[in-house]
């Protein structure tokens, strides 16, 4: 079944992508406004989880503080738009770059740390950023937040509301997918993968670990910052309660459920999480319990996630071991024959 589908896909690759694109572009015409809001949220979390996927999934680092980068991006965007009256499109790039610079700052200790140390320092940093945003009242408005951020205009059309703003999300997601796809297939992406699989081996083969790790953190946090920047103009309001540790774990959960180390993983994770959120609205308070249970279940059954990179370090080397064992058996059988 899956093989046949793959065959069909290989034959009509361009047609399949065009159909998908057509469905995505025309979506606001036949989907109700309340459902468009869900779609917008899915898109937002695709970018966020995608940024985290670059750090956790492709480079094998343990970053749990994605909310910090998200926070930096949104506040830079909000302050630029509100205080300095910069247009949305112009402010987008600086907010991404600001998050990327902070990412480089976090990557500096990350060069020497691993595992739980790295996880803790990213969490600490994320909380630090949030607390600064909460207490630096003169710039960020403190607990009151920044209100009344205008929706952007595109050639005179005001892109307010979920059904119009959807196109901005869609554009950013497509650019993210395109750029990341190119980068993962380039020299840089292969360096990241080699760091994930075996840092020592990569180093001995001449991969500049320091440079590529910093690049990795900068690229991942850049997209988290962009996600924040886009979200600010969508919700027209920002305060520090958006960026708690729980939000970071939420995004991490999506990535884990969806799958790490593949492009489609964050998309699947985000869709699953949002659909779960809507489906479990009836038992509202139990929602996160189910969510947390899913994370544990995923680690037990499929550590790389639903559509994650199987056969990699992320899968706990289970697939490799199985393959190796199979190979041994085959060799023995051949010998006996």
């Amino acid at each position, binding site marked *: 079944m899956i093989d046949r589908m793959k065959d069909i896909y290989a034959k009509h690759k361009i047609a399949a992508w065009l159909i998908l694109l057509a469905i995505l572009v025309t979506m606001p015409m036949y989907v109700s406004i309340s459902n468009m809001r869900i779609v917008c949220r899915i898109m937002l979390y695709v970018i966020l989880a995608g940024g985290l996927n670059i750090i956790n999934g492709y480079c094998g680092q343990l970053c749990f503080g994605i909310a910090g980068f998200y926070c930096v991006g949104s506040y830079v965007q909000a302050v630029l738009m509100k205080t300095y009256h910069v247009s949305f499109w112009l402010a987008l790039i600086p907010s991404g770059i600001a998050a990327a610079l902070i990412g480089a700052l976090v990557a500096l200790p990350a060069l020497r*740390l691993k595992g*739980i140390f790295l996880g803790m320092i990213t969490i600490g940093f994320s909380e630090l950023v949030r607390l600064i945003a909460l207490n630096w009242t003169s710039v960020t408005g403190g607990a009151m937040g920044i209100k009344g951020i205008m929706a952007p205009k595109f050639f005179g059309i005001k892109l307010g509301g979920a059904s119009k703003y959807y196109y901005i999300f869609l554009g950013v997601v497509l650019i993210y997918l395109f750029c990341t796809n190119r980068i993962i297939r380039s020299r840089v992406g292969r360096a990241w993968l080699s760091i994930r699989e075996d840092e020592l081996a990569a180093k001995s083969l001449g991969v500049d670990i320091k440079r590529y790790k910093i690049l990795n953190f900068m690229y991942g946090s850049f997209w988290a910052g962009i996600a924040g920047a886009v979200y600010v103009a969508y919700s027209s309001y920002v305060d520090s309660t958006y960026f708690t540790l729980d939000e970071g774990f939420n995004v991490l959960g999506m990535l884990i459920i969806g799958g790490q180390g593949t492009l489609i993983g964050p998309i699947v994770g985000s869709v699953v999480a949002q659909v779960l959120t809507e489906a479990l609205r009836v038992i509202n308070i139990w929602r996160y319990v189910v969510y*947390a249970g899913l994370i544990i279940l995923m680690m037990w059954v499929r550590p790389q996630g639903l559509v994650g990179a199987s056969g990699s370090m992320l899968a706990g080397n289970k697939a490799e071991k199985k393959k190796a064992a199979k190979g041994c058996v085959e060799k023995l059988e051949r010998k006996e024959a």
Partner: protein
Amino acid sequence: MLSQYMINQLVNGLCQGFIYALIALGFAVIVGIVGLATFTHGEIIMIGAYASYYIFSACGNNLFLGLFASFCASWLVGILVYKLCYEQFLNVPEHISLICTIGFSMLLKNLAQIFFGTEKKPMLDIIDNRIYSLGPVEISKVQIVIMVTVLALSALMMMIFNWTKWGVALRSVSQNREAAALVGINVKQTIMVGNCIGCAMAGVAGMLIGIYYQAIYPTMGATLSMKAFAAATLGGLTSVPLSALGGGILGLIENLGISISSASFRDVFSFGFLIIILIFKPTGFVKRKGVRP
């Protein structure tokens, strides 16, 4: 000359540092000595606090009963954590069990919000709040009780680790699991009990925090586990006495920090301390001898 205010802040910081030291001790036992990665420590603190709260409200003011309850409750949760997050993943890359503990901490936090309620619960007055003055130093009875409890527990733990056969077994497991199994140590059981001891320390610390701050709530653990980590890094996560020292220092830094700025910056100081330590001295101030990082 130190003003009265500064002296009070020093005493408060020291007392808080003692609690942090107890949390950091548990953390150092789990992460450093047993060699597991955990993110549930904060939630276990919360479980311990709630266990003692319900015992206090059911059975009245009996400190030892509360201590026993929080100890047992967090021990049981420790077993659960071990079964769910560690037992299957002893031989696979560490990040899997790490993410598993994150999931478990989310689970505990949200279950606590459902069953215990999201609002802050006031802890009962277990100890009458008498204040003793020793010259310029003023110290309350609560603070004395906390310090004595922490000292007694850590002395007990040091005795167990250094002088009993089981402590030696635990240290051998932390150095090399295969070799420990070869000489007939039940590795899985040793790891489980080590994990449970660390958790139980956290549970007792939760009770002490409840008594000290007079308020407990389901999300109280999130920043506390981070502070424990900050304190434990000072000892490179492996040295128990240095972790305790780190806890003391952290408490002092926080209270001196907020005495020169405002109270809302409390966490900023501890996280800043954590990041500075991790940047400049990620291995802590201890020389490693064949111990897991």
